[in-house]
Protein backbone atom coordinates (compact mmCIF):
# COMPACT_ATOMS: atom_id res chain seq x y z
CA UNK A 1 0.00 0.00 0.00
CA UNK A 2 1.14 3.50 -0.66
CA UNK A 3 -0.23 6.03 1.76
CA UNK A 4 -0.54 9.58 0.50
CA UNK A 5 1.09 11.45 3.35
CA UNK A 6 -0.13 15.05 3.11
CA UNK A 7 3.36 16.35 3.84
CA UNK A 8 5.69 13.79 2.28
CA UNK A 9 3.65 12.49 -0.64
CA UNK A 10 2.87 8.86 -1.40
CA UNK A 11 4.93 6.48 0.70
CA UNK A 12 5.16 2.77 1.25
CA UNK A 13 2.98 1.69 4.17
CA UNK A 14 6.03 0.12 5.78
CA UNK A 15 7.11 3.64 6.75
CA UNK A 16 4.04 3.97 8.97
CA UNK A 17 2.79 2.49 12.22
CA UNK A 18 -0.84 1.60 12.57
CA UNK A 19 -3.14 2.39 15.45
CA UNK A 20 -6.55 1.47 14.10
CA UNK A 21 -9.95 3.12 14.17
CA UNK A 22 -9.67 6.90 14.29
CA UNK A 23 -13.35 7.49 14.88
CA UNK A 24 -13.08 6.66 18.57
CA UNK A 25 -12.90 9.75 20.72
CA UNK A 26 -11.04 9.83 24.00
CA UNK A 27 -13.35 10.88 26.81
CA UNK A 28 -12.13 13.87 28.78
CA UNK A 29 -10.72 11.95 31.71
CA UNK A 30 -10.03 15.11 33.65
CA UNK A 31 -13.75 15.56 34.22
CA UNK A 32 -14.97 13.00 36.75
CA UNK A 33 -18.34 11.49 36.10
CA UNK A 34 -20.33 8.30 36.52
CA UNK A 35 -19.95 7.30 32.92
CA UNK A 36 -16.24 7.91 32.67
CA UNK A 37 -15.08 4.37 33.46
CA UNK A 38 -17.43 2.85 30.94
CA UNK A 39 -16.66 5.46 28.31
CA UNK A 40 -12.95 4.92 28.77
CA UNK A 41 -13.38 1.17 28.50
CA UNK A 42 -15.19 1.59 25.19
CA UNK A 43 -12.52 4.03 23.97
CA UNK A 44 -9.67 1.71 24.81
CA UNK A 45 -11.14 -1.66 23.85
CA UNK A 46 -14.30 -1.68 21.81
CA UNK A 47 -14.21 -1.30 18.03
CA UNK A 48 -16.81 -1.34 15.27
CA UNK A 49 -14.28 -3.17 13.09
CA UNK A 50 -16.24 -2.47 9.91
CA UNK A 51 -15.87 -4.28 6.62
CA UNK A 52 -15.81 -1.25 4.40
CA UNK A 53 -14.63 2.34 4.65
CA UNK A 54 -12.71 3.09 7.82
CA UNK A 55 -11.00 6.20 9.13
CA UNK A 56 -7.82 5.07 10.80
CA UNK A 57 -4.70 6.38 12.47
CA UNK A 58 -1.35 5.89 10.79
CA UNK A 59 1.85 7.40 12.14
CA UNK A 60 4.53 8.35 9.66
CA UNK A 61 7.34 7.42 12.00
CA UNK A 62 9.92 6.90 9.24
CA UNK A 63 8.95 10.18 7.62
CA UNK A 64 7.56 13.45 8.90
CA UNK A 65 6.34 12.03 12.23
CA UNK A 66 2.78 13.11 11.51
CA UNK A 67 -0.19 11.24 12.85
CA UNK A 68 -2.57 10.84 9.95
CA UNK A 69 -6.18 9.94 9.58
CA UNK A 70 -6.37 7.77 6.49
CA UNK A 71 -9.58 6.83 4.71
CA UNK A 72 -9.22 3.23 3.64
CA UNK A 73 -11.60 0.46 2.72
CA UNK A 74 -10.89 -2.67 4.71
CA UNK A 75 -12.37 -4.87 2.00
CA UNK A 76 -10.25 -3.56 -0.87
CA UNK A 77 -7.42 -1.66 0.86
CA UNK A 78 -8.28 1.24 -1.40
CA UNK A 79 -7.16 4.53 0.10
CA UNK A 80 -9.25 7.54 -0.74
CA UNK A 81 -7.61 10.17 1.38
CA UNK A 82 -5.27 11.09 4.18
CA UNK A 83 -5.08 14.14 6.41
CA UNK A 84 -3.02 15.20 9.36
CA UNK A 85 -4.81 13.92 12.42
CA UNK A 86 -5.17 17.40 13.77
CA UNK A 87 -4.16 20.29 11.63
CA UNK A 88 -4.35 22.40 14.77
CA UNK A 89 -1.17 20.75 15.99
CA UNK A 90 0.92 23.23 14.08
CA UNK A 91 0.61 26.80 12.78
Amino acid sequence: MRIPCPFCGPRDAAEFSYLGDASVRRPDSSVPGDGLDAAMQVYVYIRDNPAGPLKEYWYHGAGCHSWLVVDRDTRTHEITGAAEAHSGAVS
Partner: protein
Amino acid sequence: MLNLASKSAFATLRSASSGKGVVAAQRVGMAVATVMVRRGRAAALADTVRTQFGIELPTGPHWTAANGTMFLGVGPGKWLVINDAQNSAFVQELEDKLQGLASVVEQSGGLGILRLTGPALHETLEKGVQIDLAPAAFPPGSVAVTSIAHVGATLWKLDDAPIFEIAVARSLSTSFFHWLDASASARGLSTDDRPD
Protein backbone atom coordinates in the same frame (compact mmCIF):
# COMPACT_ATOMS: atom_id res chain seq x y z
CA MET B 1 40.07 22.46 30.57
CA LEU B 2 38.14 19.92 28.56
CA ASN B 3 39.45 19.80 25.00
CA LEU B 4 37.98 16.99 22.95
CA ALA B 5 38.61 15.88 19.40
CA SER B 6 35.61 15.59 17.13
CA LYS B 7 34.98 12.44 15.14
CA SER B 8 32.53 12.42 12.28
CA ALA B 9 29.96 9.70 11.77
CA PHE B 10 31.52 8.25 8.62
CA ALA B 11 35.12 8.83 9.73
CA THR B 12 36.24 5.23 9.56
CA LEU B 13 34.18 3.82 6.74
CA ARG B 14 35.84 2.79 3.49
CA SER B 15 34.37 1.13 0.43
CA ALA B 16 35.22 -2.47 -0.32
CA SER B 17 34.79 -1.92 -4.04
CA SER B 18 36.73 0.14 -6.49
CA GLY B 19 35.46 2.44 -9.19
CA LYS B 20 33.62 5.70 -9.23
CA GLY B 21 30.10 4.72 -10.12
CA VAL B 22 29.12 6.58 -7.00
CA VAL B 23 31.30 9.09 -5.22
CA ALA B 24 30.51 9.75 -1.59
CA ALA B 25 31.99 12.74 0.17
CA GLN B 26 31.41 13.21 3.82
CA ARG B 27 30.32 16.64 4.90
CA VAL B 28 31.85 17.60 8.19
CA GLY B 29 31.92 20.54 10.52
CA MET B 30 28.43 21.69 9.76
CA ALA B 31 26.07 23.13 12.31
CA VAL B 32 22.71 21.37 12.29
CA ALA B 33 19.54 22.10 14.19
CA THR B 34 15.91 21.08 14.23
CA VAL B 35 13.63 24.10 14.10
CA MET B 36 9.99 23.66 15.15
CA VAL B 37 7.47 26.41 14.90
CA ARG B 38 5.73 27.53 18.06
CA ARG B 39 1.99 27.34 18.07
CA GLY B 40 0.38 30.07 15.98
CA ARG B 41 3.68 31.66 14.94
CA ALA B 42 4.11 30.22 11.43
CA ALA B 43 3.68 33.50 9.61
CA ALA B 44 5.95 35.38 11.96
CA LEU B 45 8.56 32.70 11.67
CA ALA B 46 8.46 32.83 7.89
CA ASP B 47 8.88 36.62 8.03
CA THR B 48 11.82 36.39 10.38
CA VAL B 49 13.55 33.70 8.36
CA ARG B 50 13.05 35.82 5.28
CA THR B 51 14.52 38.94 6.82
CA GLN B 52 17.25 37.28 8.87
CA PHE B 53 18.46 34.68 6.36
CA GLY B 54 17.07 35.80 3.03
CA ILE B 55 15.30 32.47 2.86
CA GLU B 56 11.73 31.74 1.84
CA LEU B 57 10.76 29.16 4.44
CA PRO B 58 9.62 26.04 2.61
CA THR B 59 6.19 24.76 3.65
CA GLY B 60 6.53 21.29 2.16
CA PRO B 61 9.30 18.76 1.63
CA HIS B 62 11.66 21.20 -0.05
CA TRP B 63 14.77 23.12 0.79
CA THR B 64 15.78 26.69 0.27
CA ALA B 65 19.20 28.08 1.00
CA ALA B 66 21.13 31.29 1.10
CA ASN B 67 24.57 32.27 2.33
CA GLY B 68 25.55 28.83 3.50
CA THR B 69 22.36 28.21 5.45
CA MET B 70 19.80 25.70 4.26
CA PHE B 71 16.28 25.15 5.60
CA LEU B 72 14.93 21.72 4.74
CA GLY B 73 11.26 20.99 5.32
CA VAL B 74 11.12 17.67 7.17
CA GLY B 75 7.63 17.76 8.63
CA PRO B 76 4.70 20.06 9.22
CA GLY B 77 6.17 23.09 10.97
CA LYS B 78 9.52 21.37 11.26
CA TRP B 79 12.79 22.06 9.50
CA LEU B 80 16.30 20.77 9.55
CA VAL B 81 18.64 23.71 9.30
CA ILE B 82 22.18 23.17 8.10
CA ASN B 83 24.90 25.76 8.13
CA ASP B 84 28.26 24.98 6.64
CA ALA B 85 30.17 28.06 7.75
CA GLN B 86 32.10 26.09 10.38
CA ASN B 87 30.53 28.36 12.94
CA SER B 88 30.07 26.50 16.22
CA ALA B 89 27.90 29.30 17.56
CA PHE B 90 25.46 29.08 14.66
CA VAL B 91 22.78 27.13 16.51
CA GLN B 92 22.89 29.54 19.43
CA GLU B 93 22.56 32.47 17.05
CA LEU B 94 19.69 30.74 15.29
CA GLU B 95 17.94 30.20 18.58
CA ASP B 96 18.37 33.84 19.46
CA LYS B 97 17.02 35.02 16.13
CA LEU B 98 13.96 32.76 16.30
CA GLN B 99 13.25 33.35 19.97
CA GLY B 100 9.58 32.93 20.73
CA LEU B 101 8.78 31.88 17.18
CA ALA B 102 10.33 28.47 17.05
CA SER B 103 12.11 25.92 19.17
CA VAL B 104 15.66 25.29 18.08
CA VAL B 105 17.31 22.03 19.04
CA GLU B 106 20.95 21.29 18.36
CA GLN B 107 21.65 18.21 16.21
CA SER B 108 25.17 18.91 14.93
CA GLY B 109 26.63 15.79 16.45
CA GLY B 110 23.78 13.44 15.74
CA LEU B 111 23.93 13.06 12.00
CA GLY B 112 26.28 11.80 9.37
CA ILE B 113 25.88 13.59 6.05
CA LEU B 114 27.14 12.33 2.71
CA ARG B 115 27.19 14.15 -0.61
CA LEU B 116 26.59 11.63 -3.35
CA THR B 117 27.39 12.00 -7.03
CA GLY B 118 28.43 9.76 -9.89
CA PRO B 119 27.02 8.10 -12.98
CA ALA B 120 25.58 5.11 -11.09
CA LEU B 121 23.89 7.20 -8.43
CA HIS B 122 20.33 6.77 -9.61
CA GLU B 123 20.55 3.00 -10.03
CA THR B 124 22.16 2.82 -6.58
CA LEU B 125 19.54 4.92 -4.82
CA GLU B 126 16.82 2.89 -6.53
CA LYS B 127 17.99 -0.09 -4.46
CA GLY B 128 16.98 1.52 -1.21
CA VAL B 129 14.83 4.57 -1.71
CA GLN B 130 11.20 3.71 -2.29
CA ILE B 131 10.39 7.14 -3.67
CA ASP B 132 10.29 8.22 -7.29
CA LEU B 133 13.54 10.12 -7.78
CA ALA B 134 13.09 10.80 -11.51
CA PRO B 135 13.87 14.44 -12.40
CA ALA B 136 10.23 15.28 -12.98
CA ALA B 137 9.06 13.71 -9.74
CA PHE B 138 11.95 14.81 -7.52
CA PRO B 139 13.45 17.98 -8.94
CA PRO B 140 16.34 19.86 -7.37
CA GLY B 141 15.06 21.44 -4.17
CA SER B 142 13.21 18.30 -3.11
CA VAL B 143 13.59 16.77 0.32
CA ALA B 144 12.46 13.37 1.55
CA VAL B 145 12.50 11.89 5.01
CA THR B 146 12.30 8.19 4.47
CA SER B 147 13.75 4.83 5.26
CA ILE B 148 16.54 3.17 3.30
CA ALA B 149 17.14 -0.52 3.97
CA HIS B 150 15.56 -0.15 7.43
CA VAL B 151 17.67 2.94 8.22
CA GLY B 152 15.97 6.30 8.61
CA ALA B 153 17.38 8.87 6.21
CA THR B 154 16.78 12.40 5.07
CA LEU B 155 17.80 13.03 1.50
CA TRP B 156 17.69 16.05 -0.68
CA LYS B 157 18.61 16.87 -4.23
CA LEU B 158 20.98 19.72 -4.86
CA ASP B 159 20.98 19.74 -8.63
CA ASP B 160 20.21 17.70 -11.69
CA ALA B 161 23.74 16.33 -12.13
CA PRO B 162 22.44 14.79 -9.96
CA ILE B 163 23.93 15.62 -6.62
CA PHE B 164 22.16 14.22 -3.61
CA GLU B 165 22.89 14.64 0.04
CA ILE B 166 21.78 12.11 2.61
CA ALA B 167 21.73 12.51 6.36
CA VAL B 168 21.45 9.48 8.63
CA ALA B 169 21.58 9.03 12.35
CA ARG B 170 25.14 8.72 13.54
CA SER B 171 24.56 5.39 15.26
CA LEU B 172 23.34 3.87 12.03
CA SER B 173 26.10 5.19 9.79
CA THR B 174 27.84 1.80 9.64
CA SER B 175 24.68 -0.04 8.66
CA PHE B 176 23.77 2.65 6.16
CA PHE B 177 27.22 2.53 4.64
CA HIS B 178 26.95 -1.22 4.24
CA TRP B 179 23.83 -0.72 2.16
CA LEU B 180 25.44 2.04 0.11
CA ASP B 181 28.60 0.09 -0.52
CA ALA B 182 26.77 -3.10 -1.45
CA SER B 183 24.30 -1.27 -3.68
CA ALA B 184 26.95 0.72 -5.52
CA SER B 185 29.47 -2.11 -5.75
CA ALA B 186 28.55 -3.22 -9.26
CA ARG B 187 29.96 0.04 -10.56
CA GLY B 188 32.06 0.97 -7.61
CA LEU B 189 31.85 3.37 -4.70
CA SER B 190 34.64 5.74 -3.90
CA THR B 191 34.80 7.66 -0.67
CA ASP B 192 36.19 11.09 -0.96
CA ASP B 193 37.12 12.38 2.46
CA ARG B 194 38.05 15.90 1.68
CA PRO B 195 35.77 18.29 3.48
CA ASP B 196 34.14 20.45 0.88
